[in-house]
């Protein structure tokens, strides 16, 4: 099993406080990996470490390493690294000053892809994969403000995948979304795993069980357990999971 992302004894301090301790984790290729754990356990920080987002607005200290395709992410040029990793945030955030079409086309534009036909093809593909195409195909030049929360999140997903990134990170993407849209999004993600590797943070155990193939339980900044469904939910019967399943 190829590890597209590999954390090796990874420790993280944000503004002096230790958030992650000694994490050894492998993110398997073309699978949906789910980070589970209670609020504040460090799952989001782990996710944001992968694309080096933490260092933008915080003073951070690192111990250990994270490898992306075998090379330390700290040896990668940060922009190149981030351009190969897509991210979807907890609050849907399509750019308000760009139209729906421009939002999805934007990542292509900044890569210098100028051919209008190609851009249009890829925008359509991305919106289809995100299950949004049918709803917006006649409103592509309107602004995201007209969309509902669930639609905005699907738009954010389209924007994140249009460049066909190798990894797609999602930080609790459906926690503020209604159940109907949540189902649509989960279905899209399952469809997307053939294109890319998906890492998802969620605090919903049912969601984890629905779409996850590989699981990492993070608690108090440490990786408590990782593995497949059988390994984590059936065999181990971890009390933390039991506690979370009840809440």
């Amino acid at each position: 099993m190829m590890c597209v992302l590999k954390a090796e004894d990874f420790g993280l301090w944000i503004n002096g406080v230790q958030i992650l301790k000694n994490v050894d984790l492998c993110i398997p290729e073309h699978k949906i990996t789910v980070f589970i754990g209670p609020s504040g356990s460090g799952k989001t920080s782990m996710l944001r470490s992968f694309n080096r987002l933490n260092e933008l607005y915080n003073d951070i200290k690192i111990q250990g390493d994270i490898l992306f395709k075998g090379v330390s992410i700290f040896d990668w040029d940060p922009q190149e690294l981030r351009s190969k990793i897509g991210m979807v945030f907890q609050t849907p955030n399509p750019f308000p000053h760009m139209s729906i079409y421009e939002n999805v086309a934007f990542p292509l534009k900044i890569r210098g892809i100028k051919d209008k036909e190609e851009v249009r093809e890829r925008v359509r593909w991305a919106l289809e994969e995100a299950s949004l195409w049918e709803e917006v195909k006649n409103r592509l030049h309107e602004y995201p403000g007209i969309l509902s929360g669930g639609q905005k999140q699907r738009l954010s997903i389209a924007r994140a995948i249009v460049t066909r990134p190798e990894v797609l990170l999602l930080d609790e993407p459906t926690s503020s979304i209604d159940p109907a849209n949540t189902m649509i999004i989960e279905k899209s993600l399952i469809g997307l795993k053939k294109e890319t590797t998906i890492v998802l943070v969620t605090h919903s155990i049912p969601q984890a069980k629905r779409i996850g193939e590989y699981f990492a339980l993070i608690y108090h900044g440490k990786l408590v357990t990782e593995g497949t469904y059988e390994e984590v939910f059936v065999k181990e019967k971890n009390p933390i999971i039991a506690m979370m399943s009840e809440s």
Partner: protein
Amino acid sequence: MLILSIIALLLMFSVQLVLWLKGLPVLLLNGLRILYDIPPLPSSSQPIGGLGPSLIGSLISAGLAMLFASIVSILLAYVSVELQHKRISSVLKLTSTALYGIPTITVSMIVYSTICLHMGRQSILAGALALTIVAIPMEFTYFESIFSSIPLTYKEAGYSMGLSRGQVLKKIALGIGKAGVVSSLVAVFARIMGETAPMLFTIGNNFSSFAFNLFEPSSTVTTLIFAYAASPYKVQVDFAWGASLVLYIIYIVFSLASKLVKEVEL
């Protein structure tokens, strides 16, 4: 208390009312030539002439100052907001506040003693430099608050796509904040066009001939008003009323324009 308010309001209104009453006749007498002609000679019987050279001086010096100040201020304000967790942010804010606290007459003295003495003369460039020093702190404050109010999540979305800090500034921050940025630029332009003290020792006293060369002395509408106000020639004082009204109108138009912006819906 009501009496005091009324007195205050009366004073404020009457000042502007008198300006119109005494300035409008001068404007009507001259028509549009007030914008492109040269001022009346002291020996004239009527205040017929124009602000041409001074208006050009005002526009060029303020325009140049805006050019320099805007680039510097946008960059520094953005850095100050993005790197809030580092010390440079507070250093920049402190420096801006310090610059803002320099009395404008002192700015004039400084630019005079460095640029004008070395060049051997007063010039539009020196005036523009003085205005730049005045404009930077104003713009920095505006832009800092604009960039701070852009929700973090949009900037993070930009970075997560592989954009550099400069690209996030250009395509995301300025894109979302464009209304505020434009409004601030117009407002600051209006204010520096109305500055007098920074220009007094720097731009010169050339009211009667047009200067388009940056290294030549010129004047501004404000220095013209200042000079003519104390003039012993009645025609110049009368003309100053017209000049004051022109400056007032320019300022009001720009100020009001800066308020008519449509914000991007977040």
